[in-house]
């Protein structure tokens, strides 16, 4: 399997079928691990970096994960292949643009990936659609224990799992949920959400795009503290306290929109559909922005004749690298905008 084979369909974690998926798109847990007896990446020679890669690759490929995992050599991959993997959240941008021997082990369902030689020697991740953090933790814990049978992790009785950056030390766990919060944005309450998140030591960032703000009102919320709390405690807090509170706010904001500003919502949603069905040039940012409105419209029962599957697919496939991979090569921004518009028209007009 190569990145090109991935680029024509939506990732499992974005299929909108999981519990609570109208607001919680997906759940993800990542563990940072390093091998004992090897330097961290900043001090690791290229030869030893190659050894780390081989050790971890061998260990990972011999695991029984219920599906046959495969390895992608990131150092040898083209920029476009790397970007497809980044857009699917299978690797990070830092990993894509890193140096020296590095790679990723991927399960075909894309519910599991292991980046080797990113910031840490290994970062394993498990993704699931909707709010399924407990299930993510059970699965990744099992995988981690299986890997641990084959390699020696750097571990300290006081500081726990040792990581290259002390912001990950301890459990090495990053628990995240990806949220769609368009109603909080429309009702001007998104800053309240940011402040509340900051006060509870949570990290908030945009889900799509290279940085800046959360395009399309998609946010990723993660724990910031990794030391001093057991993994199941962190997961428990997310599942029972943090996520319910945020989804409650968003649901209430949707309710307010429906009862007090129904025309305004319909107007936004129908204008979005109008532009998407007719535009001849559309940037990925504009597409995300408009698709987000349509997604909200579908969730509120205000749209007929467009399926959520079609919208979810467009979120994924209109990203720049996906678009180019499916077109068979690199395209300049204008060509991309034209192809993107064409793809959106063809999916929405036949639908």
């Amino acid at each position: 399997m190569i990145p090109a084979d991935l680029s024509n369909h939506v990732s499992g974690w974005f299929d909108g079928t999981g519990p609570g998926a109208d607001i919680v798109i997906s759940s993800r847990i990542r563990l940072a691990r390093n091998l004992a007896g090897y330097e961290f990446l900043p001090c690791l020679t290229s030869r030893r970096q190659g050894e780390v890669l081989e050790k971890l690759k061998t260990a990972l490929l011999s695991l029984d994960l219920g599906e046959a995992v495969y390895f992608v050599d990131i150092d040898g991959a083209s920029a476009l292949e790397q970007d497809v993997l980044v857009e699917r959240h299978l690797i990070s941008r830092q990993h894509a643009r890193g140096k020296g021997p590095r790679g990723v082990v991927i399960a075909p369902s894309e519910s599991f990936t292991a980046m080797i030689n990113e910031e840490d020697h290994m970062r394993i991740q498990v993704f699931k659609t909707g709010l399924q953090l407990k299930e993510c933790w059970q699965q990744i814990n099992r995988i981690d224990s299986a890997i641990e049978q084959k390699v020696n992790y750097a571990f300290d009785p006081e500081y726990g799992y040792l990581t290259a950056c002390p912001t990950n030390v301890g459990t090495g766990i990053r628990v995240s949920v990806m949220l769609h919060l368009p109603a909080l944005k429309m009702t001007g309450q998104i800053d309240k959400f940011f402040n509340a998140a900051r006060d509870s030591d949570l990290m908030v960032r945009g889900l799509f795009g290279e940085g800046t703000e959360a395009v399309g009102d998609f946010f990723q919320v993660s724990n910031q503290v990794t030391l001093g709390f057991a993994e199941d405690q962190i997961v428990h807090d997310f599942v029972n306290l943090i996520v319910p509170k945020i989804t409650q706010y968003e649901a209430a904001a949707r309710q307010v929109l429906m009862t007090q500003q129904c025309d305004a919502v319909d107007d936004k949603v129908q204008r979005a559909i109008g532009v998407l069905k007719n535009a001849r040039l559309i940037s990925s940012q504009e597409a995300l922005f408009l698709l987000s409105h349509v997604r909200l419209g579908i969730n509120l029962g205000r749209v007929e004749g467009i399926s959520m599957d079609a919208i979810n697919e467009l979120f994924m496939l209109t990203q720049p690298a996906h678009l180019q991979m499916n077109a068979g090569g690199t395209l300049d921004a204008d060509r991309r905008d034209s192809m993107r518009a064409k793809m959106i028209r063809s999916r929405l007009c036949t639908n």
Partner: protein
Amino acid sequence: MLCQSCNERTATIHLTDISAGVRTESHLCEACAQNQGLAVKSQIPLNELLSTLLAAQSDAPPGQPQEVATDIECPNCGMTFKKFVQKSQLGCPGDYKAFGEPLRGVIAKAQNGRFQHHGKVPATAPGDTRDQIKLMNLRQQLEEAVRNEDYETAAKLRDMMENLQ
């Protein structure tokens, strides 16, 4: 959309400026935006955030050792504490010991004042380490159970702790 300034490249930076109630929009390409002194602010990676934190820390909370007077070098990997402060990445697992107290201060800042790991322990860790951490995990759970007045769970946890000790 083309850049308003050069009319050649695609505008990728869209600026809305509202001053004195007047709203103006400009659409520029990256090069022209930079020429006009508009910094493109991107998301701050966690590392950078830590560097900022570290820099802030070195300007001195009273009563704490301000600067590391003499730099510390890790005998294993050659990383120095000062270099770590710049890059916010350590050189090897041994740095956690080698950088001692100064690193402890950094960890306290990054981890909300916590130093002691709770949670998973590798099965390959020495038995006493495993038991030690397991005990601490149980103690934490016990406190939680008592707080919630769940005495049945608390009793079970106490028994488990006694078995380990």
